[in-house]
Every structure is written in C-alpha cells, then in structure tokens.
C-alpha cells in the first residue's frame, strides 16, 4: 500500500500527514528545548524592558535600559571591540581550520596523533591555556617577543599589557583554540563528499586548485556555513578566555559585550541592563544569522 493510500484511509491529507511526520521528528528534542532553554531565554529578553533586581517584582520601564546602556561608554566601546575581535577571529579561524583539515585528510604518517595534538587546545583547561599564553606573550621576556626581536623588530608590541595590542593578542589565542575544533567539522564535511565526483573530475582533467574550487569548496559549503555561524556566535559570546586572561583590561580595552553583560548581572545586580545588552548582542547575531541563511540558500550546494 502506498503512503498516499494509507493517508487517505486515515482521512488525512498528504500535507497534514507531512506536517505531522515533520513535527514528530522535532518533538522529542523540542519539548526539552522549549522548557529548559527557550522559556528562560524569552523571559530574560522580556526583562530587557524592565527593571529587576533578580528577586522582587518586575517593573516595566520601556526602553530605559537601552537608553542607559547606549549612554554607557563601556558598552558602546564593547560593541566595537567585540566586532573587531569577532571579525578577525572568524576569518583567521576559518582559514586555519580549513587548511588543517585539508592537510590532515591526506594519507600522512601519524595522522591521528597530529589531529589529536591540534584538537588539544580546545580540550585543555582554559586556566592552563591562559597562564601559558600570558607567559608566551609577556612583553619583556616572553618567547613571542624574543622571537620578534630576533628577526629585527626593535619595539615588539606590549600584547596583553597594552591597550592597543590586547585584542590582537586575544585574537591569536582564540584562533589557536578554535582551529582544531573547527578542523573536526571540516574533516567530517570532507568525509561526506562523494569520492566518485573526484574520479569524474580527474577524467575531466581538473587538478589541484581547480579540483578544490570546483568540487571540494562547493560541497563543503554546508560545513562552511556551520563553521562561520558557530564562529560568529562563539566569538560574540566569548567570555571565559578573556575573563581569565585579562579580566577585560587593561582598563576596559578588552571588555567585550559578554563581559559587560556578566558585570551588569553579577556585579551591579541590574538584570534589566544586563538583559538589554544581551538583547543587542542577540539582535546583532540574529541579523548576521538571517543574512547567512539568505546566503546559504543562494550558495550552499545541496
């Protein structure tokens, strides 16, 4: 009996049936997601239009929180710093992880060990990572600056002890942490590419770069879409690394939006302002997501 006939017997139209099947797939995950994540998230976004100390009654106060945070120089600065930090983190992390995945997808010796080593930064305790990179980027005797002096740069940057160089320093550390993680996603994506396509390309005479641009890159586009999305989200939300490495300093030179959100909620106990700042973060990321989705429809090859 065909599906269609079955549906008719039960008195359900194909569309309803399709809908029901779709919902049945989503449901198990959605129930949990809705209760434990979605409701709290919506609740906290509603808070952005109110003043709340976390305990007593919630008073709605319209757009006051938004007016307040946009008058706060720390927050306005944080938006730009976050954008700056995220832009370069996304570009460099994506490039690095793709290159690594392509390298480590080949038959080379000790491949598993190399992969494991490169994934390690993501697994390593952030405490250890922050300590080691603080030492590596130490302005006076750190290995990075020693090396820069060795190749003839007389005045190497002050890195984490300088307001101008702290963000580039953090970008380096973050790219280093990210590359192994996203390498895995690219590696998984590479496994999904049908080998016969390469064989066909071989017959057509496509080699090297041409092969990469014609087959690998387009077929990796779902992975790239995912990698870019996750990089944007993660770098806009970056918290623990900066919290441990610079506490947002020197001054407020590396205070990102998530730091601000945290400080408002847990130092100033102002959940309204904290939620308002989170709302702005949410809007920025949502906008970038929507833009990406548009792009996905156009470019993602499936």
């Amino acid at each position: 009996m065909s599906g269609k006939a079955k549906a008719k017997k039960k008195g359900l139209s194909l569309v309803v049936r399709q809908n029901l099947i779709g919902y049945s797939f989503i449901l198990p995950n959605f129930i949990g997601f809705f209760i434990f994540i979605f409701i709290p998230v919506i609740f906290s976004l509603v808070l952005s239009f109110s003043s709340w100390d976390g305990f007593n009654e919630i008073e709605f106060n319209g757009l006051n929180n938004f007016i307040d945070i946009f008058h706060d120089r720390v927050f306005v600065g944080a938006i730009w710093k976050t954008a700056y930090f995220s832009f370069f983190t996304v570009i460099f992390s994506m490039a690095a992880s793709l290159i690594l995945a392509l390298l480590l997808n080949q038959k080379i010796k000790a491949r598993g060990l190399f992969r494991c080593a490169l994934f390690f930064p993501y697994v390593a305790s952030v405490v250890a990572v922050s300590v080691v990179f603080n030492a590596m980027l130490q302005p006076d005797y750190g290995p990075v600056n020693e090396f820069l002096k060795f190749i003839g740069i007389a005045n190497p940057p002050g890195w984490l002890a300088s307001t101008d160089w702290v963000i580039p320093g953090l970008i380096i550390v973050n790219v280093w942490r990210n590359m192994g993680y996203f390498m895995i996603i690219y590696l998984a994506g590479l496994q999904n590419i049908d080998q016969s396509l390469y064989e066909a390309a071989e017959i057509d005479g496509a080699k090297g770069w041409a092969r990469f641009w014609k087959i690998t890159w387009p077929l990796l586009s779902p992975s790239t879409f995912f990698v870019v999305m996750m990089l944007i989200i993660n770098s806009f939300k970056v918290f623990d690394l900066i919290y441990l490495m610079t506490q947002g300093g020197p001054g407020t030179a590396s205070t990102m939006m998530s730091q601000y959100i945290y400080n408002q909620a847990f130092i100033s106990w102002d959940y309204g302002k904290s939620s308002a700042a989170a709302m702005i973060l949410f809007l920025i990321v949502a906008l970038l997501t929507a833009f990406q989705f548009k792009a996905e429809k156009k470019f993602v090859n499936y």
Partner: protein
Amino acid sequence: MKKKFVKTMAVGLTAAMAATTLLAGCGGSGSDKTEGGSETVTLTFPVWDLASNPYLDDIVSGFEESHPDIKINVVDVAASEYTNKLSVMLNGGADCDIVYIKDADGTPSYAEKGQLEDLTEYAEKDGIDTSKYVSYDAFNLDGKQVAVPFKTDYYVLYYNKDIFDAAGVEYPSNDMTWSEWEEMCKKLTSGEGSSKIYGGYLHTWQACVENWAVQDGENTILGPDYSFMKPYYEMALRMQDEGTIMDYSTLKTSNINYASPFQQGTVATLPMGTWFSPVMIAKKAAGESDVNWGIATLPHPDGVPAGSTVGSTTPMGINANSKYKDQAWEFIKYACGEEGASKLIARGQMPAYQDDTTMESLAAYEGMPEGAAEAMKTTSIVLDRPIDSASAEVNQMLGEEHSLIMIKEKPIDDVLKEMSDRSKEIQGE
C-alpha cells in the same frame, strides 16, 4: 497572529514566575519528626572553601553537638563563584537559611531586596554585647541590623627576617610611615635577574595601592574625587621604576600570586591581610617554605596614628524567607559569639567577636611569629570598601582604571579624572 503568540507567552511566563515565587521555600531543608516527638530541623548553610577553612567544620560540629535538634547542611562552593551562586540561590528561591556573605560590601544588595532578616530584636532579646564586635554597626542599614560580623581581617606588614639580617637593616617597627617603608625597601633590594631580592611587594589588586589612601578614614573608594589617591599611585610607580617592587605587568601577565615570591624568599616586606598568617604557618609546617617571617603593624600615612589599618569583615545573616529563623539565629549566635570565636582562634583566624584575651590567644597560636600580638594591635580599622550598594560596581571600575596607571598607559591625573567621571555616573543612577 504574532501578537497573540507574544501575549500567550507573556501570560505563560508570568504564571510560571508566580508559581515559582509561591513554591519558593518549599524545598529540601525541612524538619523530620524523631521518635521522641521533638523535631529535627535542617538548616542550609552555603560556604566557600570548606576544605581550606577547617574552622567552618569545627563550628558546625560544635554547634550540632550542643544543639541536637538542629542539623546544618553545609553547601560548599568555590570561592570565585560563591557570590554568584549565593545570589542565584536566594533569587531563585532555593533553600538557604544562613546567609554567609563573602564580600561585606555586597550586604546592601541583599538587604535592599529584603532578603536579610532584621536581627535587632533577636540580638536585644538575647542581650548580645554588640560592643565586643568589630564593625557591628556597619551592618546596621537604615536602622536594621541585617547581619552580624563573624570574622575579620586587616592589613599588616609581613617581613622576611633573613633578608633584613643579610642587608643589615633593622626589623620594621610597628610605627612606620609609608615613606619610611619606601626608603626601607630601597635598602633591602639587591641582586639581578632571577635571583633579585625585592624590598617590597604591592600585589596587583587595586586595594594594594588604594587601601593606603583610604587608611586615614577621611576618604573612601566611593570618591567621587580621587585626587587623594595620587600620592600613593606616585609612590607605586616610583617604586616600580626604581625596581624595589616587582613590575605590575610582569605580575599580571605571569599570574604571580603574592604568596609565592614571599614564600620563596625573594620579597623582604609584604603588606597583606591577616588571612595570610595561617597560610604561612601551614606552608612552613608542610616544609614547603623555609622563610623566617615576622609581622609588623601596617605602615601608616603621615599624621595618622600608628595602628590604624584597613580591613574587611565577613558577616552572617538570616534569609528573610527562611522557615527556621529562630534556629538560624541560634546558629549565628553560636558562630559569631564566644564559641565561634574560640574555634576561629584555634585555627589561627581572627574572629570579629573580640575581648581582651583575643589577641593574646591568637598570637599564642602555634607557628605565629614572636611579637605578633604587639603587631596586630590596632587603633582603628577602616573598612576597605564601605558597606554601600554602589561599592561593588565602583570597585570594579577602579580595578579597570587602576591597571591603566600601573602599566603606565595613561598619566595618573588623567586616570583619576576618568575614575571620578565614571564614579559619578555609577552613583548618579
């Protein structure tokens, strides 16, 4: 369509929150009928660093022994997240009967929300001698005694006797000004590279510069004018340039904790809180440090009497939503009273409840250096951060600006001006 959804959501959320508020307090701590008919009550008591603060266990077991009908459920939380967790517990309606406040300046934020019970009547009923407590009245907010001081700590000057002997410098006296200290550090500094001995040490906390500026009790970190801090920042930068203290950016970027350089014997004098004594004693007992150390009174600003120092007090209060307030008060009376004090002293810690014998018994604690009793005598203890609802936020801001001065990114005057502007913004709200 969309509007309807939003409306439904809003109603649902309000209902959920209302339910939460109603249900708050109906949780785990509770009472069990024992066979004899008397009820056993369990109180929830969140603490931090249980393992490294054995006096907490001493107090809890001592209390349970003398109060067989009350059990204490200790919830151990990591120090760095304690304040977060405590407020999530209080705000989220979880059980928590005794509110042990880690940073005293956070007290108003709980009190303003109405989360702390007014203890005035309890104290009167039981005839508590409030004069025996260090900064008891500081926790009287708007006429309500919201907490009772449990433990206190203040800054003293730790020094390494061997370095003084080697340099032929006399041990620091209990009456010394900050400029005398600065001079002394010059004489004690020697060597180069990794074997260098530093005469002094100022930790990276803003407190380790700004505390000396508020020591006279005339100004507080709330400012909003911060020019009074200038001499101390100048001193810190001067000492950094002369190499008598370690460089701020080195300390910061290499995560150096004040304890290590002192325990390794590379620092001659260290202004630090009294909490450091039990740590030193434990390290020496474990054979992990062989520093021959001493304690002197904290140096003081010119024109301020010797023995005036800066400190902080750790208080305990009762959750206003607790079902067992009377039992919680029994615990606070015990922990913050004479019994608790003797248990703190037995572990080398300084109680907030003090009488004539407190300093003597503390100085007699095994491993405490000679002359500790003299050195720990105070004429006044100024609170490092005033008990004010803006304190935490201002302190956060000061920490940010502090680093700009110490890494010499901006001139002192500019930063002090910036501090003042931001402080006004925070407190103006």
